[in-house]
Every structure is written in C-alpha cells, then in structure tokens.
C-alpha cells in the first residue's frame, strides 16, 4: 500500500478534470447528477469520519454545509462580478476554502462543549445546532433571509466536485490509516480503554468534528455554485438525515462503501422521478428493509476496519 495513496489522489483528480473537459459531449442533465454525486460523496465521507470512524453521532452536518455554502456564495456574489474571468477559478477555490474554514471554526466552537456528551445526547445537541444555523440564515438580511441567495455564479463543474471528493477520500482514509489515526477507531470502540492507552479522546473527537465540518463546508460551497440558488430550507434537518443514511447504508466506518452509497442515493431519487408521488415511500421502505437485513451496512463485507 505504501505510496499508492498519493498516486490514487493524483489519478482521481486528473480523471475528474479529464471528464470535465469533455463534459459538453454528455447530456447536461446527467452531468448535473454526476456533480451532485461528487458533492454528496464529500458530505458522506466527511460525516463518516465523525459518525463511523470516531463513533460520535452527529446530526448537524447540513448546518456545517450551510455555513460553508453561504460564506462561499456571499464572497463570489460580492467580489465575483468585478473579477477577470482568468482569475475566477482561483477566486472560487479561495471562496470554497474560506467557506470550509468558517465551517471548521463553527465545528470547533460547537464541538468543544458538546462532545462531552455521548450517543443520543450528542445527536440531539448537534440536531439543535443545525437548526440554529438554519434559523440564523433565515432571519439574516445579509444572507437574503428566507429567500436565500440567488444568482450565484455556476462555477461548480465535474472537475471541482469529483476532484474535491477525491481529496476528501484521501484525507479521511489517510488520517484513519495511520498510527495516529487508529486513535479515532479506538475512541469509537472503547473510550475508557483508549484513554488508558494514552489516547486523548477529547482531542480525537474534536479533530474528527473539525475535519468533518471543514469538508461539509466545502461541499456547501460546491452545492451553492452548482444550484445558483440557496435558501435556508435546503439545509434543514432532512438534509442531515439524508447524509446520515448514506453513511449507514455504506457501512459505518467503511469509506469505500460510503462512496458507493452516496452515489446510489443520489441517483435513486432521480430514477424514481417517474413515480414522483411514491418516491419518498420507496426510499423509506428501502431503508427499513436494509436496516432489517443488513444492519452493518450494504457494503460492509470485509472483517477489517481500516478504511
């Protein structure tokens, strides 16, 4: 395995750019769905670091996504029009980064006090936090209140979405697959034993939370520049649940499985458009059946935990 991780990252990014360059050959609708897939992969893989590997049940991922999305969108809306088109990709990258960092800082602020809680309690606190974020944006005139932000330049394309998805996978997998990163899984397995073995559980939990929030923020920025319109309603509790379902379906702590699940669950609602009225019923049934038959996750075959 040595040294192959970086090669994977490089190849994935090159492939993403390559596909993006010939995107005009494909149907625009399909390309749009493909971009959505990449964004959801970022969300699910980053949440998997918190919920799967570290075992801290967070329901606030849409909140972090909103922070990143609004920050990045506001930046491009205010400064974007005056920029020369040649520097726009760099500016977009910067805006995404600012969105990610803001989300990470919010993650730190939320994580430090709330990660003292465990299980259901943590889930409730993060759920409440996600709603607080949404309501803040809903009432803030700077961020367009209930209408949200409109006319955001459509910078996001296949290369951005899947390139950054590859970066997310690389970061999460590299973190976990290391002597340092085994601490995340140790905290998940047994916090008391972990601390008796010299592992600081608080530090690991906060790290997972901050890294997870950072990538959720990046995904939010991509989402905003894909849809061109964002409103508080798009970052509600259901969005968080949707990401949690991807993690559970893929198998908690299985990066590869979660990637597949994120793609499947993005495509499935599109396929079910024909039976739109029954879409949510089919979706819910699928999850119920899955939980009854494969509670360990659809793509959880191997015995080993290492991502």
């Amino acid at each position: 395995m040595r040294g192959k991780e970086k090669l994977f990252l490089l190849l994935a990014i090159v492939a993403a750019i390559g596909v993006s360059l010939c995107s005009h050959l494909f149907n625009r609708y399909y390309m749009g769905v493909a971009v959505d897939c990449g964004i959801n992969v970022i969300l699910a893989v980053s949440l998997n670091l918190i919920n799967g590997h570290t075992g801290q049940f967070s329901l606030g991922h849409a909140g972090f996504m909103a922070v990143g999305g609004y920050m990045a969108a506001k930046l491009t809306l205010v400064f974007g029009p005056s920029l020369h088109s040649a520097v726009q990709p760099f500016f977009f990258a910067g805006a995404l980064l600012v969105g990610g960092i803001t989300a990470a800082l919010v993650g730190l602020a939320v994580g430090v006090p709330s990660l003292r809680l465990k299980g259901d309690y943590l889930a409730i606190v993060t759920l409440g936090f996600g709603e607080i974020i949404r309501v803040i944006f809903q009432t803030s005139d700077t961020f367009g209140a209930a209408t949200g932000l409109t006319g955001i330049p459509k910078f996001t394309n296949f290369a951005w979405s899947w390139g950054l998805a590859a970066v997310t996978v690389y970061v999460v997998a590299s973190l976990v697959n290391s002597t340092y990163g085994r601490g995340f899984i140790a905290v998940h397995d047994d916090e008391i034993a972990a601390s008796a073995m010299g592992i600081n559980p608080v530090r690991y939990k906060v790290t997972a939370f901050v890294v997870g929030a950072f990538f959720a923020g990046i995904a939010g920025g991509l989402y905003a520049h894909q849809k061109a319109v964002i409103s508080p309603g798009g970052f509600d509790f259901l969005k968080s649940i949707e990401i949690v379902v991807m993690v559970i379906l893929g198998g908690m702590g299985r990066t590869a499985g979660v990637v597949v699940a994120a793609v499947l669950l993005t495509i499935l609602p599109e396929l079910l458009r024909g039976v739109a009225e029954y879409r949510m019923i089919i979706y819910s049934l699928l999850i119920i059946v899955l939980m009854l038959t494969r509670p360990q996750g659809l793509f959880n075959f191997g015995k080993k935990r290492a991502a």
Partner: protein
Amino acid sequence: MTAPLLELEKVTIKFGGLTAVCDLDMCIGERELIGLIGPNGAGKTTAFNMITGVYQPTSGTIRFRQKLTAGVKPHLLSLRGISRTFQNIRLFSQMTVLDNVRTAMQGNRAQRVRDALLRGKVFREVEARVAGEAMELLKIFSLDQFHDSMAKSLPYGDQRRLEIVRALATQPKLLLLDEPAAGMNPTEKHQLMELIRFVQDKFQIAVLLVEHDMKVVMGICQRIHVLDYGRKIAEGTPAEIRANPKVIAAYLGTETTDA
C-alpha cells in the same frame, strides 16, 4: 531506600454518602509485585480507577514517580507510565490483534495529523517501526500468528493475554492488572502466574495485581494489601496475610479455621 514508584497517602473517595475507599496508604517500589485483595465491593477496582486517573480522590494524595497525580487525565498518566488491564476485557473489538497493540503505541510517537496526511518518508519509517515493534511484542506472547484476526474472535484466555500485551505496548513503569484470572480454569491460572512473573522480570516493571483467586495472589506477590469495606485491614507477605485473623474473618466470616 529509593523513593517509591507509586505512593498513596490517606486516599479517600466518597460517592454521595458511600465511602468506597477510606484512608488508604500504599507504597509500590520499582519492580515490585504487589497484590491487592479483598472481598467483593471492598474498593479494589475503585482504588485502581483512582490510581489511573479515572476517579479523583475526595481527599488524600497519590504520587507517581514523586509527582502528584491529582487532576491529571488518564491518557496523560498513561504517558507518564501507568498502564492497566480491565476486569471486564476492554479490547478494541473492531480492530485486529496487531492494530490493538499498534494503537497503544501511538501515545509515545511524534506522529501527528500532518504526518498522516503527507505520508512522507518519516511517516513510513514510523509506521514500519511501530508495526515491527508490535509484532515483536506479540511474538513474545506467542500471539503473532493471530495478528490479522479480529481481537474479539480470539479465545477468552488469549484476549486476556492480548490485553496485557496492549498494556505493555505503552511502555509502562507500573502495570495494573484488574482480576486477570477471572473466568480462567486452573491450568490457565497457572500459565497466567508464570506470565505475570515473566512480564515483571522481562520488562523490569512494577505490577499491582487485583485478584480474587488466593492461589494466584499468594503464589506470586511479594507483598499483599487487603481491603475490606474500603479500609485496609492488613498488609504483609503472603505468609503473614494467610495467618492474619482479620483477613480470615473478612473472607470466611468469624469462625475459626483449623486449616
């Protein structure tokens, strides 16, 4: 005599109205093998949890290598050199045997987030060294052939041994064993006694052993402390403890014995 490795002075802990441990004094020197015994609920595990920083004593002081441990978090005490096993096995069940040991080694490594992300030369060297050292440790306890199995799939006795190996991986000065013989048959108990002696000798560490099984404790400990209802009722060599009427009363009731 040199200063003791671990020193407990009038250590008391109260949970609400219940005094779980009261005025406990205890000294453990370098490379000593000390036993801590007592009937169920005597406060042995509570004493363990205070030494390892899980609980904070209500009053009294604990010193490890002459430094107070009050308010120090368990993971920092582990880095200072206190390691332990648990009464109910607490392995990292979702990890392989090798990963369990490797994880315990991470506290003493300089590896940080940045190293793990950049995956440079230093990172690979540390990874290789950690894996090598972990395998060596496993080999000493002949667990190396299971290195790729999940920890929870090992037989019970091997899980107990793996817990000891994992504790040793933190490079402790003091190893606390919480009822390592629980659930073992006589043959396994005998092997365990050999193992504890071997560990103490090979790694040159002090061992504090909490145990119910008299044969095990009497067989290997140099000195024994006896707790009953949170108070120390006796201290001495195995022979002294065996003859002590208070100990006999605590364990067997107040009838006289003629064994």
